[in-house]
């Protein structure tokens, strides 16, 4: 029979994941990146089908109407479509429209959903080249990303699917052990699968709790204050496209951290937070 402790852990894991929303891909800070222009579009964007909007957005992009393309891509995202290539196109449109900050936040969202997409990586690197501040974007070190390759190489959806597969395998072996309780091979097999189950489930939970959100600066230049009010001293200035760790969020303020540990408060209206 399967040891009781393992069974209890296996039961607790899905409850923990579901209660913390860990299996769900990260939500956006403001659901949908705000389009630059929300007015009536020259294109026929009344189409309700996301595929039609996507095609219309591509057409607008090709014609150089980047604001309209941003509007249409954003509507597709708002319709619940979760695909890195959509964020990739949106990032391209933002960058062509001169909105470096929103472009970088779109690429970052895209890389969460498609972490192995080389095109996304290439355009993200290209866009980062235009950022003024010489600040290394937040991310794991090469050692960490190598050691935890499954964590950084898989999207939340892929991790969730892997978890479901391992979970199914674990319970299948557990059922088999009901009928073959004395099988040594099954015992080792279930232990191995249990470790996999904990690893994948733990990775999903870590996505939720251990990876702090990233703030992307939107305007050309903003002030970071010593405290969350405009009367405090300006500590440093940040420029469009700079990506920083978010340490704390209050109503209209966000506390950001530079790579050297220095911290400052920026008004949230100038920041796009990517969870």
């Amino acid at each position: 029979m399967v040891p009781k402790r393992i069974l209890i852990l296996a039961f607790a894991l899905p409850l923990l994941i579901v209660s913390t929303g860990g299996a769900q891909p990260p939500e956006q800070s403001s659901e949908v990146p705000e389009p630059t222009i929300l007015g009536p579009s020259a294109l026929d964007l009344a189409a309700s089908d996301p595929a039609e909007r996507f095609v219309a957005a591509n057409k607008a992009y090709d014609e150089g109407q980047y604001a309209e393309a941003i509007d249409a891509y954003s509507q597709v995202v708002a319709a619940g479509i979760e695909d890195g290539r959509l964020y990739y196109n949106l990032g391209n449109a933002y960058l062509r429209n001169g909105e470096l900050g929103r472009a970088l936040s779109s690429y970052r969202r895209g890389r969460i959903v498609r972490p192995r997409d080389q095109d996304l990586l290439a355009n993200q690197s290209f866009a980062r080249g235009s950022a003024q501040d010489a600040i290394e974007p937040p991310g794991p070190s090469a050692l960490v990303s190598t050691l935890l390759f499954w964590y950084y190489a898989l999207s939340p959806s892929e991790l969730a699917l892997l978890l479901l597969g391992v979970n199914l395998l674990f319970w299948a072996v557990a059922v088999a052990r009901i009928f073959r309780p004395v099988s040594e091979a099954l015992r080792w097999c279930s232990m191995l699968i249990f470790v996999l189950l904990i690893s994948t489930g733990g990775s999903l939970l870590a996505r939720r709790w251990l990876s702090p959100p990233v703030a992307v600066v939107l305007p050309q230049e903003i002030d970071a204050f010593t405290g969350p009010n405009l009367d405090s001293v300006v500590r440093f200035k940040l420029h469009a496209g700079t990506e920083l760790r978010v340490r704390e969020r209050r109503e209209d303020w966000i506390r950001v951290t530079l790579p050297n540990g220095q911290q400052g408060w920026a008004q949230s209206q100038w920041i796009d937070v990517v969870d």
Partner: protein
Amino acid sequence: MRISEHRRRGRIDGLHVDSALGRLALWLLLLAFVPSTLARAQSVTATIDRPEVSVQDPLHLTVTVEGSRSARPQLPDLSDFDVRSRGQSTQMSFVNGQLSSSVKYDFVLSPKRPGTFSIGPVTVEIDQEIYSSKPFTVRIVGASQATRDSQDLFITAKVSTTNPFVGQEVIYVWRFYRRIRIGDARLEPQDFSGFLAEDLGEVREYRSTVNGVQYLVSEIRKSLFPQEAGPVVIPASRLTCEVLTRSRRRGGTIFDEFFGTSATDTKVLRSRQIELEVRTLPASPRGFSGLVGEFEINGEVSQAELRVGESTTLRTTVRGSGNVQMIGEPKLPELPAFKTYDDKPTGAIKRDGARLTGFKTYSRALVPLEVGEPVIPPVKLIYFDPNGESYRTAETAAIPLRVGPRQGVETLHLTEAITPTTGKVAVRILADDLLPIYKGLDAVRHRRVRSWTVAFGLVVPALVFIGTFLVQRRRNRFALDHDLRRRHRATKRFRAGLKQVVSGPVDDSQRAQLASRVLREYIGDKLGVEGTALTPEEVDQRLREKGVTDDLVKETHELLVRLEASQYGATVIEADLLSEQLGSLVSRLEKQVRA
């Protein structure tokens, strides 16, 4: 009469108070009854400190609510102003024997634009009644209407041209003039959407005289490069600062009278917004470099005389002012007589001058392959000159070289020079750009994975395991425990026997015999003994051991006795009645034996 006057006299409403202690006691008594003696006259008034101000000066709006300390005033539409609260104060007065309280709310209104504005009534709700103040009108005059020499501080913003071409450098100069002390100056981030913006140096500070008045000036310069043709607006910049003032307060102490009282006044300064009409570039000639401004190109070699196999460096430098970030490598002509090796380009952009200037130098090592006097042809650079509004071509001079034979070695054969084992160079990236967008419709087919979907997938296998586990455990228990199997089958066997009792025998004695056997077997199955061998007395004892109530034991006993009697014709029991009695008895036994 004010309360201070009463205090001086030491009497309030006919009471005569001699001592300070008595006055203190009277004050406490008075404060204790404040709510009950407050005058009930409710009203709201709104006043401003002056009816006409400059667009750069704030208005002070004071709202006084009488008769309530908790009611909050509702301000009218003030969309033409930035509204900031400066707090509130409560005042109490004692007039004609009536104590009244009022709350003053102070607001600072910073005008957004010049004009005459009607400000509607301020309303307040007290005891479910709405009170309104009188509306009033204020006039906001533009900054230009006030003579500049009378201004202590102002800001200006100018651009070098309002009709630039796409990519042309526009110098934006922002200046802050002041001749009084200020503090806590805050310039809101400026929006340069539609431009590529570059800072031209740090903030400069100097003194300047305007209309005979000397000011301290802070200056910010930026280079702006419009990215698209059409109308573009640089929004007005806004600067907020605190101005130190000295005011005299009536009724203050002697020190206040002598020194005055320091205070700060908030000033909001705005520059005018600047509208530009960006022009498209004329149709560009073939080979246009994308540079807009004034540029030149120079070429030189490190040595003009060399031998075959030696190298000389060709340096091509593009320098100028304008969109220097766009400087790319000019296209070099074909040089079939040389083997070429690229070097890393060098360059610099100077941002601390009056304009954005810079240069970039591209170096290439040339190794001649044959003896002769080859000439490096001119290198051309096509750029757009916004002053002349035309495309211009700059070019280097042709550079003659003299190549002698390799020293001490026979003349190099061409075939040897181009063998694949020599002179391999790394692929050089000429330009970089965004990769194109993705157009496949599969990009819009993936919806977000919901938590409940994952939860379902996680829980269902666990439930399947639990079900399988319970079923298997039950099977094992049944397989190992014969009595348990009998107990679980007792009711089922009884129901089958009861059907036979009702529909089977036509003879009453046989029916009674069958019914007696069915009942005894049921009891035997439930108690784990051979039921048909039990006497009614043994049944009584066994049932009592199982905790069955005396009434039910007695009823069971009587039925068994009657059934035995019926077997021998002593009594007759009808089939339906017998079935009903047996069914009722067994259902109650089922509950009590189980319990």
